[in-house]
């Protein structure tokens, strides 16, 4: 209540659903809230919980991979029939891999990442009171929440969760008789993803229309922080690609439940010939990867944005090549729709088409490399402050380089045909997407925690978290490259069943221990995150000395963001360590007239009036200097 009365201006942008003057109850404040900052926290906390669940699933299947012959009686206690005698069943192993991948890709790195930071940063950094449609924004979160619940519910159905891999290729996913997970579990998977897509589309529409319509005075497109650019492109990619997944999933649904033959043909299950005829599983792969490849960039772009911001702030230097950063985001976004075929080099694609996809795929490495070089150039000779957010950002760049390089390998059809569906691929995408994106997300959490909760996280725990996770992730994924080159396929249940794979068992033990230790390090993060909410050091208004608008809002995080008028923007967000200025940062709200000593000719964008004033001032300074001599 207090917040609405002290903020007459805040009520303007609220949509019609907002009930003025009512007391905020627990329900309207924390549950069905329409405040973008609260929704951001809901996304973040749900994302973190889902991440822990998916992490736990991965530890379960890593146990199986490291010790395929050993019994773990404790597993039977909480997994029941899925781990009879303390050993995970093959069907359940596949379910674990599938749900781990699904949760991580869609629920953590898509919704958890862009949902959190789009909601938090878009209004705050462009100077808006809230999203364009706060009610739809709320729906977006609750759809996401329901999608999570439905996905997790599949662990409690008789036949178990979906088991066809996160890419749910038919025919395995289309035939309930093929594997137990393709029964009810698969149906729940499809429903969950359907709800999830609705959530993404609602969120995405909101993000785009807010960015393009509701920027404050002076916030021209070319003055937007790179986080906003990245979140804008992420939302556009999502809006164009998720509907394609709707088509793919609905056709799959028809094949499963109605007996159509879009994807199915010539199938014999247990000696019985099925009626499905004439379909093509390759069709599904086309539809899936037309979404799937943009999806991997939906995952990484928000991290790019966050890391650009964090690296620039903590190097106390302007981001190197701001325009190049934006154009490379654009280039990546456009190209990401033209490369899906690289996931299908071994589907009998004609060599010519394969060549086309190879070329587009390798071209996408160019804008990616531009970004990496710019990060490094920004850090180069900076006044680096190694805050936890900064070390996680540097970690993100490191992972992106390591994983991107193997991208170049597998982008070549000739090499990919050898390593497709091996651990080489697992290593590639866990470094370039998994680790890089999660590090970007963690950097964002450490960096904007004071903005979200008004308190600081503990730095020491942050460094501990960083080093164990960083080293752990490399220990887990580097060895997988060698397994892949040796031809070890992914998603195999027991290495002991194949002679050529048996020698890799010791490596698997090493990987599993690394994963367990890295997993335990996340407990340090969880503790830090939740404990600091109540007990962290109180934050100051602008703890990192940053230029962007969110740090001009009061620490109390009021509804409507700014008391009184919205801020006016006078400059780009990266005036760090500008020569001639007394401090090493100049917030976007400071007009040039207050920084005469540091203005440069190109700051005025060719405005002759302003240039004249500046020249006169400089001439006068000279006179003053002369006189004082």
């Amino acid at each position: 209540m207090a917040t609405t009365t002290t903020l007459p201006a805040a009520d303007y942008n609220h949509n019609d659903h907002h009930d003025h003057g009512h007391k905020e109850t627990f329900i309207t404040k924390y549950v069905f809230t329409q405040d973008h900052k609260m929704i951001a926290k809901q996304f973040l906390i749900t994302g973190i919980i889902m991440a822990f669940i998916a992490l736990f699933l991965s530890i379960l299947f890593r146990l199986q991979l490291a010790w395929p012959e050993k019994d773990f009686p404790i597993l039977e206690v909480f997994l029941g029939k899925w781990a009879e005698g303390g050993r995970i069943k093959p069907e359940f192993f596949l379910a674990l891999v599938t749900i781990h991948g699904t949760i991580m890709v869609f629920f953590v790195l898509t919704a958890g990442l862009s949902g959190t930071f789009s909601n938090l940063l878009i209004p705050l950094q462009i100077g808006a009171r809230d999203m364009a449609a706060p009610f739809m924004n709320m729906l977006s979160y609750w759809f996401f929440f329901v999608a999570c619940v439905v996905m997790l519910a599949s662990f409690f159905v008789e036949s178990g969760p979906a088991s066809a891999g996160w890419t749910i290729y038919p025919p395995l996913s289309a035939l309930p008789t093929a594997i137990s997970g393709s029964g009810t579990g698969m149906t729940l998977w499809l429903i969950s993803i359907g709800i999830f897509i609705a959530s993404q589309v609602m969120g995405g529409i909101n993000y785009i229309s807010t960015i393009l319509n509701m920027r404050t005075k002076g916030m021209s497109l070319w003055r937007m922080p790179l986080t906003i650019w990245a979140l804008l492109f992420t939302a556009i990619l999502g809006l164009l690609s998720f509907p394609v997944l709707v088509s793919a999933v609905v056709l799959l649904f028809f094949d499963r439940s109605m007996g159509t033959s879009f994807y199915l043909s010539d199938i014999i299950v247990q000696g019985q010939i099925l009626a499905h005829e004439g379909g093509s599983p390759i069709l599904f792969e086309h539809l899936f990867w037309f979404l799937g490849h943009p999806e991997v960039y939906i995952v990484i772009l928000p991290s790019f944005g966050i890391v650009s911001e964090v690296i620039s702030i903590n190097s106390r230097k302007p981001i190197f090549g701001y325009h190049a950063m934006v154009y490379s985001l654009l280039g990546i976004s456009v190209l990401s729709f033209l490369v899906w075929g690289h996931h299908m080099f071994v589907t009998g694609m004609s060599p010519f088409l394969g060549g086309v996809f190879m070329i587009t795929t390798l071209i996408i490495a160019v804008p990616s490399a531009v970004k990496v070089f710019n990060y490094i150039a920004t850090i180069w000779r900076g006044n680096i402050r190694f805050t936890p957010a900064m070390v996680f950002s540097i970690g993100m760049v490191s992972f992106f380089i390591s994983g991107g390089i193997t991208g170049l390998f597998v982008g070549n059809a000739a090499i990919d045909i050898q390593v497709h569906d091996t651990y080489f691929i697992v290593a590639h995408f866990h470094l370039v997407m998994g680790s890089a994106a999660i590090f970007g997300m963690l950097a964002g959490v450490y960096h904007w925690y004071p903005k979200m909760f008004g308190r600081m996280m503990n730095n020491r725990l942050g460094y501990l978290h960083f080093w164990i996770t960083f080293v752990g992730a490399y220990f887990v994924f580097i060895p997988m490259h060698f397994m892949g080159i040796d031809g070890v396929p992914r998603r195999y249940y027991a290495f002991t069943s194949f002679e050529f794979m048996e020698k890799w068992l010791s490596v698997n033990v090493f990987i599993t221990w690394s994963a367990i230790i890295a997993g335990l390090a996340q407990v340090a993060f969880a503790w830090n995150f939740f404990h600091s909410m109540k007990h962290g050091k109180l934050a100051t208004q602008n703890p990192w000395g940053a230029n962007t608008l969110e740090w001009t809002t009061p620490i109390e995080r009021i509804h409507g963001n700014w008391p009184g008028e919205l801020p006016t923007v006078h400059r780009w967000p990266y005036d760090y360590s500008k020569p001639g200025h007394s401090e090493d940062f100049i917030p976007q709200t400071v007009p040039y007239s207050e920084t005469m000593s540091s203005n440069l000719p190109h700051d005025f964008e060719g405005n002759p009036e302003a240039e004249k004033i500046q020249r006169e001032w400089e001439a006068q300074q000279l006179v003053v200097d002369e006189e004082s001599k």
Partner: protein
Amino acid sequence: MNTHPENNIEDPARASAFKAKRFALWLFIIASFMIFASLSSGFIVYTAGGIDKGIKIILPKAFITSTVVIIASSITVHMALLATRKGESMKRKILLALSVLLGLGFFASQFHAWQVLVEQGAFFINNNASQSFIYVFTGFHLVHIFAGIIVLLFAFFRPLNKYSLSQNVYNMELSAMFWHFLDILWIYIYVFLLLNQ
């Protein structure tokens, strides 16, 4: 007419929020067009898979009826918008009711087309999935039409006197925009199917 300042569309903050909503509708239209674009490319990829694939039948005449009906409904919706602008609420109501009826007529006509398809032996469950695609296209579109009819009903039952004229016009513009999209979408689908007949 209500003169509460909150409802004054000329207020700049309100106007920008409205602009954002219209923009959001455009984005929604793009998203749902992507569904049909992907179905089209799916159809093309599938049909290129063999000479035994393809529609292979003459499309039902009912599709022509549907086309006429939906174009008529677009016209009545547009007239309802004009009536809203002039503040002729009775005329507006009648035109909207007519549009809803035409929308229902479109529904019926499409169902009839499905019956004709079944009689021709072009079943949904079919080893030539090109024919199944006809049902998928029209079915997805009907889902949209269903939503569109709900939008029109909302417009019909909107208590006009509770809002300012400019707000009512604005609201009706959005509803009309959505309905015209459904119209154009159907023409796209029909032409696409005809070209592949």
